[in-house]
């Protein structure tokens, strides 16, 4: 699946590793269950590590380890399931995660702007979501009312001229 980062197609450097498969010597993504089971070994590896969370899995389970990961994949089982919006916020605030938060699974073009705002910066998209469609979706609404993880100035800040 194509990966979009910073509004353009990007190469996916991470291998998605099944729970039963051996780990390659390259950047790899494992499930939360495997991460929790093999935490010591995985963190001791010499290659970037990513963890994949299902909609119902809170990143709180990663605790302080989150900061040691390069990538966290948040899956949307169904586009209507909005838990990942809060998981991304939690990663960017409480857990201080600065690596890539990648969206995977079932989400709509019309959700991209919200996802970008709460801290997603990688998007595993279907062929339908081209970089053009992606950029259009992010540009549809110029102004926002809420402070969020993207640091965008709010309407209130703009009003105050700051």
């Amino acid at each position, binding site marked *: 699946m194509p990966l979009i980062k910073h509004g353009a197609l990007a190469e996916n450097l991470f291998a998605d590793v099944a729970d039963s498969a051996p780990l390659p010597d390259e950047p790899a993504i494992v499930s939360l269950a495997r991460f929790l089971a093999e935490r010591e070994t995985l963190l001791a590896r010499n290659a970037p590590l990513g963890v994949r969370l299902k909609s119902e899995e809170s990143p709180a389970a990663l605790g302080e380890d989150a900061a040691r990961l390069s990538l966290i994949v948040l899956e949307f089982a169904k586009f209507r399931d909005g838990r990942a919006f809060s998981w991304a916020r939690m990663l960017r605030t409480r857990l201080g995660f600065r690596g890539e938060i990648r969206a995977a699974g079932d989400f709509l073009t019309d959700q991209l702007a*919200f996802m970008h705002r709460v801290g997603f910066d990688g998007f595993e998209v279907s062929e339908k979501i081209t970089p053009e469609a992606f950029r259009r979706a992010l540009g549809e609404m110029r102004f926002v009312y809420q402070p969020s993880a993207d640091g965008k100035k709010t309407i209130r800040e703009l009003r105050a001229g700051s």
Partner: protein
Amino acid sequence: MYRYDEFDAVFVRERVEQFRYQVARRLSGELNEDQFKPLRLMNGLYLQLHAYMLRIAVPYGTLSARQLRMLAHIARKYDKGYGHFTTRQNLQFNWPKLKDVPDILAELATVEMHAIQTSGNCIRNVTADHFAGAAADEIEDPRPTAEIVRQWSSLHPEFTFLPRKFKIAVSGSAHDRAALKFHDVAVQIVKNKAGETGYRVLVGGGMGRTPYLGYVVGDFVAKPDLLAFLESVLRVYNEQGRRDNLYKSRIKILAHTLGEAEMRRLVAREFSEIKAAGTLTVPDEELKRIAAYFAPPAFEKLDDVLPESADKDFADWAKTNLHRHRAPGYAIATISLKPIGGVPGDASHQQLDALADLMDEFGQAEIRVSHEQNLVLPHVRKKDLPAIFARLKKLGLATPNAGLVTDIIACPGLDYCDLANARSIPVAQAIAKRFSDLSRQHEIGELKIKISGCINACGHHHAGHIGILGVDKKGVEFYQLQLGGSAAEDASIGEIMGPGFGAHEIVDAVERVIETYLKLRVGGERFLDTYRRVGMEPFRNMTYREQLHAAH
């Protein structure tokens, strides 16, 4: 009232264009109905039984004359000439065409209106006390707070795909006219011992299949912290609310499963983090800036007397449709949208236009929509009342029944709604006709009948002194009675009386309940007081005592 600045205006215009593009993609087939559904819902567009329905936001129920005229114009140009005011202070059009909806929204944007978040699993249009800024019993006008909440909740990036819908109500008075305890979250302006105003926040109220009264989750939230507090509640809900069962996914279920102590602990944890980050703090200047928009009109020094009128109907209307105003010589006037035999909450384009003219003529900058599906003129000079009454009478808007047995709340029911099991409107009409005699209505006194055509409870039947719930029994409409509900400060959930009644029996059953009350009441008791004193049993015995007549 609030006026958009350049940012608000661009926000709403861009939202219209975004939706125009979504509609185009739906019409071209790029989006299927499943994908389009949450997008249209968040722009107020439902697919009903016969057609689309567009629900337009009336934030905290406040409208200007200019906005009323626009609603009249839309009713004429794009609909069948009328609109329907809802129990959430919004206005619904029942017959728009999908292709026209972006244009309707664009026209609304020219008068600072929209349909954002009037549906969908997001934070819905915020409601408030319809007597805001006018009531004598108010601590503070709740609308500046509601406006701050409205802006914060508009396209909130984290809370637009919640487990279910989320309704917030705001009140600034100890007398609850906003049904606070039946909301997902309620914000009540209160004073602490030091005399400062702040917010008491309730969580977990709701109607529907499993009704609950909300409980207090924040005893006294300081004004600048309100958004941080609300964001905390919403985050707990978004993370932990159930998503496996549509009927268990409202915050009321989470709140009552977790219990008060655990809910408070979870909210407090989020709150401490969000507050520490500081970005959601509402600065004092912003509170003042917003509050300035809602400054009351300059009240004249007037004699506090109700003038005489040659029209004998005026006194009847004044008895029920006027409420005490904070300024001497002024009154709050309720314009009933419950004519006997009419559709509760409906208004024609002619009526909307004529009301706008009346507002201009009598210096009324605002009109309000109440959750009881009536309209309210908040600041009327008492000396103008006879003239205003005369005008309302000509418009068919002078029904003298505010708070009486014929002032019935009813959902659209099976006449319009996809979800309904039974019709609501004909039942409301039949009850109103049965009790149309005004002296009988006065004899009965305050009585709130609320009718829902299905368990989703849009007609607030759980909160009715007499609640009526339409059910489907093997393809036949039946109606269950509930007694003893209240949406006021003495909130309670009505109790089911027993087996349901057929469509031909329900009016007789309601009449027996009311006759029972008249026999049992002591002194000046309202129906609700008598019910609470004597309980269900006497009502049940009298109502089921023999076969109801099948003739009606």
